[in-house]
């Protein structure tokens, strides 16, 4: 049973309350069609369990097959520095079929972030290092493709439909109760 080797930390992007009973960690790639398809079920799960669940998103870009995935992840990290990680995250997935450098710059502007700061921060490599650290942590935890989910630290080996994710979340809730 694969387990999450890198605990959730302050450097992570967290959606939901830190007091939530269940933590859903997703390793994803912004150019992966399955990750885009997983957006809806993940949101359904967050709604269904309300304050009892929180989502953490970590980057796992397979840049050899998805050449825009690395830059997209860095763009989300950049937005995260200004408190807009999840806005950018959703915007990138929503626009996945036309992902390009130009589109990412457009999204930066659309979120009223500075394109100049964007270029400077990209050039500094700070976001690339964070993305790579996420990737390596994922590899060590047994992430073997995207999306890969961990529910309270245990890899979810089923599909990413809401019923399948929900069943794993229910199990995690039961484990806590016992």
């Amino acid at each position, binding site marked *: 049973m*694969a387990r999450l080797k890198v605990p959730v930390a302050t450097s992570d992007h967290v959606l939901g309350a830190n007091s939530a009973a269940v933590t859903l960690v997703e390793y994803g790639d912004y150019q992966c069609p399955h990750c885009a398809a997983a957006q809806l079920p993940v949101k359904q799960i967050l709604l269904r369990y309300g304050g009892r669940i929180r989502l953490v998103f970590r980057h796992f870009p*397979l840049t*050899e097959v998805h050449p825009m995935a690395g830059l997209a992840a860095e763009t989300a990290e950049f937005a995260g520095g200004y408190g807009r990680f999840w806005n950018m995250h959703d915007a990138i997935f929503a626009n996945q079929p036309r992902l390009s450098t130009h589109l990412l710059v457009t999204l930066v502007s659309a979120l009223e972030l500075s394109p100049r700061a964007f270029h400077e921060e990209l050039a500094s490599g700070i976001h690339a290092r964070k993305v790579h650290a996420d990737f390596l942590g994922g590899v060590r935890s047994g992430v*073997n493709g995207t999306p890969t989910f961990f529910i309270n630290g245990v890899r979810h080996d089923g599909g990413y439909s809401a019923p399948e994710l929900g069943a794993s979340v229910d199990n995690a809730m039961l484990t806590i109760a016992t």
Partner: protein
Amino acid sequence: MSTILRAGARAPGFKLHVTPDQVLLLDEIQGKRIVLAFYPADWSPVCGDQMALYNQVLPEFRSRGAEIFGISVDGAWCHQAFAQARHLHFPLLADFEPKGEVARAYGAYRASEGVCERALFVIDEKRAITWSYCSPIAVNPGADGILDALDAMPKTGE
């Protein structure tokens, strides 16, 4: 599931096509640790993910003094097309003729389907297997086990 060779066993030698006009001998690879990743077939979705992952993790293998080789019963031309389509930066070995001979030597051949198991071997500089793992055929075994095995070996040059 086959019974694969375990840690401590000597890695069986091989002489396999690595490109349509190039042959690789295990004994030719000097002073390197070797990761052999047997997989059932080029193009099948899970294998694609597995090889794409190893492609991405390549710097981590190399920084640990290891070279990785994918190996299946597909022919060298098939491997070439697959590697080009997936931008793979590591070699794929063709266990094609006699079919599956090397996989059989490692205990990693599925005679019922005529393909390799999804089996991983880490081999040290002296050709001893230091770690092996056979994954359920439909499950991508990832790279964590390989990296843990490489990290557990003495530092290269010692």
